[in-house]
Protein backbone atom coordinates (compact mmCIF):
# COMPACT_ATOMS: atom_id res chain seq x y z
CA UNK A 1 0.00 0.00 0.00
CA UNK A 2 1.26 3.50 -0.71
CA UNK A 3 1.32 5.30 2.64
CA UNK A 4 2.26 8.58 0.96
CA UNK A 5 -0.77 8.61 -1.31
CA UNK A 6 -3.06 7.55 1.51
CA UNK A 7 -1.84 10.37 3.77
CA UNK A 8 -2.19 12.81 0.87
CA UNK A 9 -5.75 11.66 0.31
CA UNK A 10 -6.55 12.13 3.99
CA UNK A 11 -5.29 15.72 3.74
CA UNK A 12 -7.83 16.51 1.02
CA UNK A 13 -10.53 17.10 3.61
CA UNK A 14 -8.40 19.83 5.24
CA UNK A 15 -5.01 20.53 6.84
CA UNK A 16 -3.92 18.27 9.70
CA UNK A 17 -1.06 17.76 12.11
CA UNK A 18 1.10 14.68 11.78
CA UNK A 19 -0.50 13.19 14.87
CA UNK A 20 -4.03 13.63 13.46
CA UNK A 21 -2.92 12.06 10.21
CA UNK A 22 -1.60 8.99 12.00
CA UNK A 23 -4.82 8.68 13.99
CA UNK A 24 -7.00 9.01 10.86
CA UNK A 25 -4.85 6.48 9.00
CA UNK A 26 -4.92 3.93 11.83
CA UNK A 27 -8.66 4.30 12.20
CA UNK A 28 -9.40 3.68 8.52
CA UNK A 29 -6.60 1.50 7.21
CA UNK A 30 -4.28 0.45 10.03
CA UNK A 31 -6.39 -2.33 11.54
CA UNK A 32 -3.53 -4.79 11.70
CA UNK A 33 -0.57 -2.50 11.33
CA UNK A 34 -0.82 1.00 12.82
CA UNK A 35 1.71 3.54 11.51
CA UNK A 36 4.77 4.48 13.53
CA UNK A 37 5.25 8.18 14.15
CA UNK A 38 8.58 7.92 12.41
CA UNK A 39 6.87 6.67 9.23
CA UNK A 40 4.46 9.60 9.29
CA UNK A 41 7.15 12.23 9.70
CA UNK A 42 9.54 10.73 7.18
CA UNK A 43 6.69 10.42 4.66
CA UNK A 44 5.57 14.00 5.28
CA UNK A 45 9.06 15.40 4.81
CA UNK A 46 9.33 13.52 1.50
CA UNK A 47 5.95 14.87 0.36
CA UNK A 48 7.04 18.36 1.46
CA UNK A 49 10.27 18.08 -0.50
CA UNK A 50 8.34 16.97 -3.61
CA UNK A 51 5.91 19.88 -3.32
CA UNK A 52 2.88 17.66 -2.75
CA UNK A 53 2.15 19.19 0.67
CA UNK A 54 3.04 22.50 2.30
CA UNK A 55 3.30 23.66 5.88
CA UNK A 56 0.08 25.41 6.74
CA UNK A 57 1.12 26.55 10.22
CA UNK A 58 3.38 25.72 13.14
CA UNK A 59 2.23 25.54 16.73
CA UNK A 60 4.86 26.01 19.35
CA UNK A 61 4.10 24.18 22.56
CA UNK A 62 5.83 22.64 25.51
CA UNK A 63 7.13 19.74 23.41
CA UNK A 64 8.50 19.68 19.90
CA UNK A 65 6.92 22.11 17.44
CA UNK A 66 3.84 20.75 15.64
CA UNK A 67 3.60 21.34 11.90
CA UNK A 68 0.22 21.45 10.26
CA UNK A 69 0.28 20.12 6.68
CA UNK A 70 -1.96 21.07 3.76
CA UNK A 71 -2.16 19.31 0.40
CA UNK A 72 -1.05 21.29 -2.66
CA UNK A 73 -2.64 21.23 -6.12
CA UNK A 74 0.19 18.98 -7.27
CA UNK A 75 -0.68 16.70 -4.34
CA UNK A 76 -4.34 16.46 -5.40
CA UNK A 77 -3.24 15.63 -8.95
CA UNK A 78 -0.92 12.96 -7.58
CA UNK A 79 -3.74 11.31 -5.59
CA UNK A 80 -6.00 11.52 -8.63
CA UNK A 81 -3.37 9.79 -10.77
CA UNK A 82 -2.76 7.07 -8.19
CA UNK A 83 -6.47 6.30 -7.86
CA UNK A 84 -6.92 6.11 -11.63
CA UNK A 85 -3.95 3.80 -12.24
CA UNK A 86 -4.72 0.08 -11.94
CA UNK A 87 -2.54 -1.96 -9.61
CA UNK A 88 -0.37 -4.70 -11.00
CA UNK A 89 -2.40 -7.86 -10.35
CA UNK A 90 -0.57 -9.75 -7.60
CA UNK A 91 -1.37 -11.54 -4.34
CA UNK A 92 -2.60 -9.52 -1.37
CA UNK A 93 -3.77 -6.73 -3.62
CA UNK A 94 -6.93 -6.31 -1.57
CA UNK A 95 -5.41 -4.02 1.06
CA UNK A 96 -4.25 -1.51 -1.57
CA UNK A 97 -7.53 -1.69 -3.48
CA UNK A 98 -9.52 -1.38 -0.28
CA UNK A 99 -7.53 1.74 0.59
CA UNK A 100 -8.12 3.22 -2.86
CA UNK A 101 -11.86 2.57 -2.72
CA UNK A 102 -12.28 4.02 0.78
CA UNK A 103 -10.10 7.02 -0.03
CA UNK A 104 -12.04 7.72 -3.23
CA UNK A 105 -15.31 7.67 -1.29
CA UNK A 106 -13.84 9.79 1.52
CA UNK A 107 -12.71 12.44 -0.93
CA UNK A 108 -16.04 12.54 -2.78
CA UNK A 109 -14.80 10.72 -5.89
CA UNK A 110 -16.62 7.76 -7.37
CA UNK A 111 -15.12 4.34 -6.66
CA UNK A 112 -16.81 2.54 -9.60
CA UNK A 113 -14.11 3.73 -11.96
CA UNK A 114 -11.33 2.31 -9.77
CA UNK A 115 -12.98 -1.11 -9.71
CA UNK A 116 -13.72 -1.03 -13.46
CA UNK A 117 -10.16 -0.05 -14.35
CA UNK A 118 -8.82 -2.80 -12.11
CA UNK A 119 -11.19 -5.37 -13.63
CA UNK A 120 -9.94 -4.50 -17.11
CA UNK A 121 -6.34 -4.86 -15.96
CA UNK A 122 -7.04 -8.24 -14.37
CA UNK A 123 -8.87 -9.47 -17.46
CA UNK A 124 -6.06 -8.24 -19.70
CA UNK A 125 -3.62 -10.43 -17.76
CA UNK A 126 -6.11 -13.33 -17.71
CA UNK A 127 -6.37 -13.14 -21.52
CA UNK A 128 -2.60 -13.22 -21.82
CA UNK A 129 -2.40 -16.28 -19.53
CA UNK A 130 -5.25 -17.99 -21.40
CA UNK A 131 -3.39 -17.50 -24.70
CA UNK A 132 -0.18 -18.81 -23.18
CA UNK A 133 -2.04 -21.79 -21.78
CA UNK A 134 -3.57 -22.65 -25.15
CA UNK A 135 -0.19 -22.69 -26.84
CA UNK A 136 1.68 -24.36 -23.99
CA UNK A 137 2.34 -27.87 -22.73
CA UNK A 138 0.71 -29.38 -19.65
CA UNK A 139 3.26 -27.78 -17.29
CA UNK A 140 2.49 -24.34 -18.76
CA UNK A 141 -1.21 -25.03 -18.45
CA UNK A 142 -0.92 -25.93 -14.76
CA UNK A 143 1.18 -22.86 -13.98
CA UNK A 144 -1.15 -20.55 -15.89
CA UNK A 145 -4.22 -22.13 -14.27
CA UNK A 146 -2.83 -21.42 -10.81
CA UNK A 147 -2.42 -17.75 -11.67
CA UNK A 148 -5.81 -17.65 -13.40
CA UNK A 149 -7.65 -19.03 -10.37
CA UNK A 150 -6.00 -16.43 -8.12
CA UNK A 151 -6.88 -13.60 -10.49
CA UNK A 152 -10.41 -14.91 -10.65
CA UNK A 153 -10.64 -14.78 -6.85
CA UNK A 154 -9.53 -11.12 -6.97
CA UNK A 155 -12.16 -10.39 -9.58
CA UNK A 156 -14.89 -11.96 -7.47
CA UNK A 157 -13.83 -9.68 -4.64
CA UNK A 158 -13.97 -6.70 -7.03
CA UNK A 159 -17.50 -7.64 -8.08
CA UNK A 160 -18.67 -8.07 -4.51
CA UNK A 161 -17.13 -4.73 -3.55
CA UNK A 162 -18.79 -3.04 -6.53
CA UNK A 163 -22.14 -4.44 -5.39
CA UNK A 164 -21.56 -3.05 -1.88
CA UNK A 165 -20.25 0.40 -2.80
CA UNK A 166 -23.42 2.26 -1.81
CA UNK A 167 -23.43 0.68 1.65
CA UNK A 168 -19.73 1.34 2.10
CA UNK A 169 -20.18 5.00 1.12
CA UNK A 170 -22.99 5.30 3.67
CA UNK A 171 -20.88 3.80 6.45
CA UNK A 172 -17.98 6.07 5.64
CA UNK A 173 -20.19 9.16 5.72
CA UNK A 174 -21.43 8.30 9.22
Amino acid at each position, binding site marked *: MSIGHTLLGLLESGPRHGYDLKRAFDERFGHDRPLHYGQVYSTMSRLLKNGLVEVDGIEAGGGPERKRYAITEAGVTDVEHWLATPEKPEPYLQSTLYTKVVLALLTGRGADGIL*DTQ*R*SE*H*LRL*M*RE*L*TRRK*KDGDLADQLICDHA*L*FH*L*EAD*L*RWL*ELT*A*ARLDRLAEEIRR
Partner: protein
Amino acid sequence: MTTAPLLRASGLVKAYGPTPALAGADFGLRAGEVVAVMGPSGSGKSTLLHCLAGIVRPDAGTVHYDGRELTAMTDGQRSALRRSDFGFVFQFGQLVPELTCVENVALPLRLDGERRKEAERRARAWLERLEVEDVAAKRPGEISGGQGQRVAVARALVTAPRVIFADEPTGALDSLNGERVMALLTDASRDTGAAVVLVTHEARVAAYSDREIVVRDGSVRDAEWAA
Protein backbone atom coordinates in the same frame (compact mmCIF):
# COMPACT_ATOMS: atom_id res chain seq x y z
CA MET B 1 -10.28 1.46 -33.56
CA THR B 2 -12.61 2.90 -36.15
CA THR B 3 -13.96 -0.12 -38.04
CA ALA B 4 -17.75 0.22 -38.30
CA PRO B 5 -19.63 -2.26 -36.14
CA LEU B 6 -21.48 -5.20 -37.67
CA LEU B 7 -24.02 -5.06 -34.85
CA ARG B 8 -24.85 -1.82 -33.09
CA ALA B 9 -27.31 -1.12 -30.29
CA SER B 10 -28.21 2.37 -29.09
CA GLY B 11 -30.22 3.38 -26.03
CA LEU B 12 -31.86 0.00 -25.46
CA VAL B 13 -34.60 0.01 -22.83
CA LYS B 14 -36.58 -3.08 -21.87
CA ALA B 15 -38.86 -3.80 -18.92
CA TYR B 16 -40.71 -6.94 -17.96
CA GLY B 17 -43.81 -5.57 -16.23
CA PRO B 18 -42.65 -3.06 -13.64
CA THR B 19 -39.14 -4.54 -13.56
CA PRO B 20 -36.61 -2.70 -15.71
CA ALA B 21 -34.15 -5.14 -17.31
CA LEU B 22 -32.30 -2.69 -19.55
CA ALA B 23 -32.12 1.01 -18.80
CA GLY B 24 -30.25 2.50 -21.72
CA ALA B 25 -27.71 0.13 -23.22
CA ASP B 26 -25.21 0.99 -25.96
CA PHE B 27 -23.15 -1.70 -27.58
CA GLY B 28 -21.12 -2.35 -30.71
CA LEU B 29 -19.72 -5.57 -32.16
CA ARG B 30 -17.21 -5.68 -35.02
CA ALA B 31 -17.10 -8.51 -37.52
CA GLY B 32 -15.06 -11.39 -36.13
CA GLU B 33 -14.76 -9.91 -32.66
CA VAL B 34 -15.35 -11.94 -29.47
CA VAL B 35 -16.93 -9.75 -26.77
CA ALA B 36 -17.75 -10.96 -23.26
CA VAL B 37 -20.84 -9.48 -21.61
CA MET B 38 -20.23 -9.59 -17.86
CA GLY B 39 -22.14 -8.48 -14.80
CA PRO B 40 -23.89 -9.83 -11.72
CA SER B 41 -26.96 -12.07 -11.87
CA GLY B 42 -30.08 -10.16 -12.82
CA SER B 43 -28.10 -7.22 -14.24
CA GLY B 44 -29.66 -7.53 -17.71
CA LYS B 45 -26.97 -9.53 -19.56
CA SER B 46 -29.35 -12.07 -21.08
CA THR B 47 -31.94 -9.42 -21.94
CA LEU B 48 -29.24 -7.51 -23.81
CA LEU B 49 -28.32 -10.67 -25.73
CA HIS B 50 -31.98 -11.35 -26.56
CA CYS B 51 -32.44 -7.78 -27.86
CA LEU B 52 -29.23 -7.91 -29.93
CA ALA B 53 -30.26 -11.23 -31.47
CA GLY B 54 -33.77 -10.02 -32.30
CA ILE B 55 -35.38 -12.56 -29.98
CA VAL B 56 -37.15 -9.86 -27.99
CA ARG B 57 -38.06 -6.37 -29.14
CA PRO B 58 -36.82 -3.54 -26.87
CA ASP B 59 -39.31 -0.97 -25.54
CA ALA B 60 -37.05 1.80 -26.81
CA GLY B 61 -33.77 2.11 -28.66
CA THR B 62 -32.50 0.54 -31.87
CA VAL B 63 -30.42 -2.40 -33.02
CA HIS B 64 -28.73 -2.22 -36.41
CA TYR B 65 -27.23 -5.29 -38.03
CA ASP B 66 -25.14 -4.95 -41.18
CA GLY B 67 -26.88 -1.73 -42.20
CA ARG B 68 -30.40 -2.97 -41.48
CA GLU B 69 -32.54 -1.95 -38.52
CA LEU B 70 -33.38 -5.16 -36.71
CA THR B 71 -35.80 -3.37 -34.39
CA ALA B 72 -37.91 -2.24 -37.36
CA MET B 73 -38.26 -5.71 -38.91
CA THR B 74 -41.35 -7.91 -38.69
CA ASP B 75 -41.23 -11.06 -36.57
CA GLY B 76 -40.92 -13.12 -39.75
CA GLN B 77 -38.00 -11.07 -41.06
CA ARG B 78 -36.16 -11.29 -37.75
CA SER B 79 -36.75 -15.01 -37.59
CA ALA B 80 -35.35 -15.45 -41.10
CA LEU B 81 -32.31 -13.35 -40.22
CA ARG B 82 -31.67 -15.39 -37.08
CA ARG B 83 -31.68 -18.58 -39.15
CA SER B 84 -29.42 -17.24 -41.90
CA ASP B 85 -26.92 -15.08 -40.01
CA PHE B 86 -26.93 -16.00 -36.31
CA GLY B 87 -26.00 -19.07 -34.30
CA PHE B 88 -27.00 -19.76 -30.70
CA VAL B 89 -25.49 -21.66 -27.78
CA PHE B 90 -27.28 -21.69 -24.44
CA GLN B 91 -26.37 -22.91 -20.96
CA PHE B 92 -28.18 -26.17 -21.53
CA GLY B 93 -27.58 -27.38 -25.08
CA GLN B 94 -31.28 -27.47 -25.91
CA LEU B 95 -30.74 -30.31 -28.33
CA VAL B 96 -33.80 -32.13 -29.63
CA PRO B 97 -33.90 -35.33 -27.50
CA GLU B 98 -35.55 -37.50 -30.17
CA LEU B 99 -32.86 -36.81 -32.80
CA THR B 100 -29.35 -38.22 -32.91
CA CYS B 101 -26.47 -35.78 -32.44
CA VAL B 102 -25.66 -35.64 -36.16
CA GLU B 103 -29.35 -35.01 -36.92
CA ASN B 104 -29.38 -32.24 -34.31
CA VAL B 105 -26.40 -30.52 -35.91
CA ALA B 106 -27.85 -30.98 -39.39
CA LEU B 107 -31.25 -29.61 -38.32
CA PRO B 108 -30.67 -25.90 -39.14
CA LEU B 109 -29.48 -26.89 -42.64
CA ARG B 110 -32.48 -29.18 -43.15
CA LEU B 111 -34.81 -26.34 -42.10
CA ASP B 112 -33.18 -24.25 -44.82
CA GLY B 113 -34.02 -26.93 -47.37
CA GLU B 114 -30.64 -28.71 -47.60
CA ARG B 115 -30.80 -32.40 -48.63
CA ARG B 116 -30.32 -34.88 -45.77
CA LYS B 117 -27.12 -36.44 -47.12
CA GLU B 118 -25.35 -33.13 -47.66
CA ALA B 119 -26.65 -31.67 -44.38
CA GLU B 120 -25.36 -34.66 -42.42
CA ARG B 121 -22.02 -34.62 -44.23
CA ARG B 122 -21.48 -31.02 -43.14
CA ALA B 123 -22.78 -31.81 -39.64
CA ARG B 124 -20.28 -34.67 -39.29
CA ALA B 125 -17.42 -32.38 -40.29
CA TRP B 126 -18.37 -30.00 -37.46
CA LEU B 127 -18.74 -32.82 -34.94
CA GLU B 128 -15.22 -33.88 -35.89
CA ARG B 129 -13.95 -30.34 -35.51
CA LEU B 130 -15.50 -30.18 -32.03
CA GLU B 131 -13.88 -33.57 -31.19
CA VAL B 132 -17.22 -35.40 -30.69
CA GLU B 133 -17.54 -37.38 -33.94
CA ASP B 134 -17.93 -40.56 -31.86
CA VAL B 135 -21.33 -39.43 -30.49
CA ALA B 136 -22.82 -38.73 -33.95
CA ALA B 137 -25.28 -41.66 -33.80
CA LYS B 138 -26.20 -41.19 -30.12
CA ARG B 139 -29.14 -39.25 -28.76
CA PRO B 140 -28.58 -36.30 -26.35
CA GLY B 141 -29.77 -38.39 -23.38
CA GLU B 142 -26.90 -40.85 -23.95
CA ILE B 143 -24.00 -38.38 -23.85
CA SER B 144 -22.29 -36.25 -21.15
CA GLY B 145 -22.96 -32.56 -20.53
CA GLY B 146 -19.61 -31.57 -22.00
CA GLN B 147 -20.23 -33.60 -25.16
CA GLY B 148 -23.75 -32.15 -25.44
CA GLN B 149 -22.39 -28.62 -25.28
CA ARG B 150 -19.88 -29.38 -28.05
CA VAL B 151 -22.71 -30.75 -30.17
CA ALA B 152 -24.62 -27.52 -29.48
CA VAL B 153 -21.60 -25.46 -30.59
CA ALA B 154 -21.37 -27.55 -33.76
CA ARG B 155 -25.05 -26.88 -34.43
CA ALA B 156 -24.50 -23.12 -33.93
CA LEU B 157 -21.59 -23.12 -36.40
CA VAL B 158 -22.94 -25.41 -39.11
CA THR B 159 -24.78 -22.64 -41.00
CA ALA B 160 -21.60 -20.46 -41.09
CA PRO B 161 -23.24 -17.65 -39.07
CA ARG B 162 -21.71 -14.18 -38.92
CA VAL B 163 -22.60 -13.79 -35.24
CA ILE B 164 -22.79 -16.42 -32.53
CA PHE B 165 -24.76 -15.61 -29.39
CA ALA B 166 -23.61 -17.70 -26.45
CA ASP B 167 -25.46 -17.36 -23.13
CA GLU B 168 -23.46 -18.92 -20.27
CA PRO B 169 -22.31 -21.70 -22.61
CA THR B 170 -20.17 -23.31 -19.90
CA GLY B 171 -22.52 -22.62 -16.99
CA ALA B 172 -23.44 -26.27 -16.50
CA LEU B 173 -19.95 -27.71 -17.06
CA ASP B 174 -16.98 -28.41 -14.78
CA SER B 175 -13.82 -26.30 -15.23
CA LEU B 176 -11.99 -28.66 -17.57
CA ASN B 177 -14.96 -29.26 -19.89
CA GLY B 178 -15.90 -25.58 -19.77
CA GLU B 179 -12.41 -24.52 -20.82
CA ARG B 180 -12.33 -27.04 -23.65
CA VAL B 181 -15.69 -25.85 -24.97
CA MET B 182 -14.50 -22.22 -24.83
CA ALA B 183 -11.24 -23.03 -26.61
CA LEU B 184 -13.09 -24.94 -29.36
CA LEU B 185 -15.80 -22.29 -29.72
CA THR B 186 -13.41 -19.35 -29.96
CA ASP B 187 -10.93 -21.18 -32.23
CA ALA B 188 -13.72 -22.20 -34.60
CA SER B 189 -15.29 -18.73 -34.64
CA ARG B 190 -11.91 -17.12 -35.31
CA ASP B 191 -11.24 -19.51 -38.16
CA THR B 192 -14.62 -18.87 -39.76
CA GLY B 193 -14.60 -15.12 -39.02
CA ALA B 194 -17.78 -15.28 -36.92
CA ALA B 195 -18.20 -12.69 -34.18
CA VAL B 196 -19.26 -13.90 -30.75
CA VAL B 197 -21.38 -12.24 -28.07
CA LEU B 198 -20.53 -14.24 -24.98
CA VAL B 199 -22.67 -13.75 -21.87
CA THR B 200 -20.85 -15.03 -18.79
CA HIS B 201 -20.35 -14.25 -15.13
CA GLU B 202 -17.12 -16.25 -15.04
CA ALA B 203 -13.88 -14.35 -15.52
CA ARG B 204 -11.99 -17.40 -16.76
CA VAL B 205 -14.56 -17.81 -19.52
CA ALA B 206 -14.46 -14.09 -20.34
CA ALA B 207 -10.68 -14.41 -20.70
CA TYR B 208 -11.29 -16.15 -24.05
CA SER B 209 -12.77 -12.90 -25.42
CA ASP B 210 -11.07 -9.95 -27.14
CA ARG B 211 -12.70 -7.44 -24.80
CA GLU B 212 -15.43 -7.24 -22.20
CA ILE B 213 -18.34 -5.00 -21.36
CA VAL B 214 -20.05 -4.84 -17.99
CA VAL B 215 -23.81 -4.66 -17.49
CA ARG B 216 -24.86 -3.26 -14.14
CA ASP B 217 -28.48 -2.48 -13.22
CA GLY B 218 -29.47 -2.60 -16.88
CA SER B 219 -26.83 -0.07 -17.97
CA VAL B 220 -23.95 -1.03 -20.19
CA ARG B 221 -20.53 0.48 -20.03
CA ASP B 222 -19.18 -0.05 -23.51
CA ALA B 223 -16.47 2.58 -23.59
CA GLU B 224 -15.82 2.04 -27.30
CA TRP B 225 -19.37 2.56 -28.49
CA ALA B 226 -20.99 4.78 -25.84
CA ALA B 227 -23.47 7.21 -27.40
